[in-house]
């Protein structure tokens, strides 16, 4: 199936740990995004890469570091996890050449920091 996939689906970890979330898209898109959805369902953009280049970098703690090894993958590494990092993290992709910014979202990774 063509899709945006994320691993893991659920992540439960202790404060202070380092963890990574992976995202892959096989839609042939050249732009990928990371969003954070908080407990009130508010969805906020964190980062975006276009052809492996960082193009959007919102006000996010530098404990969060995205990496794009190729245009089909965008990973998110989080150092020294804090309680406030608990949220659902969504990966999304789009093709920059297409009009109107339609984005395709992955199923999300629910991160719980204890």
């Amino acid at each position, binding site marked *: 199936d063509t899709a945006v996939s994320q691993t893991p689906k659920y992540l439960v970890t202790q404060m202070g740990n380092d963890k990574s979330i992976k995202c892959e898209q096989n839609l042939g898109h050249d*732009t990928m995004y990371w969003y954070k959805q908080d407990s*009130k369902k*508010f969805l906020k953009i964190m980062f975006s890469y276009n052809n492996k280049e960082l193009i959007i970098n919102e006000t996010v703690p530098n404990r969060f570091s995205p990496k794009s090894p190729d245009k089909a993958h965008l990973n998110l590494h989080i150092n020294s996890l804090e309680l406030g990092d608990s949220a659902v993290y969504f990966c999304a992709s*789009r093709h*920059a050449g297409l009009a109107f*910014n339609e*984005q*395709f979202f992955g199923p999300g990774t629910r991160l719980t920091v204890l």
Partner: protein
Amino acid sequence: TQLLEQSPQFLSIQEGENLTVYCNSSSVFSSLQWYRQEPGEGPVLLVTVVTGGEVKKLKRLTFQFGDARKDSSLHITAAQPGDTGLYLCAGAGVTDSWGKLQFGAGTQVVVTP
């Protein structure tokens, strides 16, 4: 920051009733999307509106973009339980070229049989 305000935050209706969700801003958007999100899943695009005054229909869903491209509405006719979900509007700024979307806080719609 272009703030998108959605109203109402929560809507509970009976099957067969109509409902309207609003998305308002003081800023102009080059395009505006509506997504629906179901529990445990990511948002799924329903429609994109681009032209001021544009009206798009998707079966029982009608989407409208305001003339000034600052607001939008989603109207559902004869709602069904399958319409239950979190409805999100998202706008792209007129100077944006990288798809930086500003999302509203969402409207949770519950349709009971």
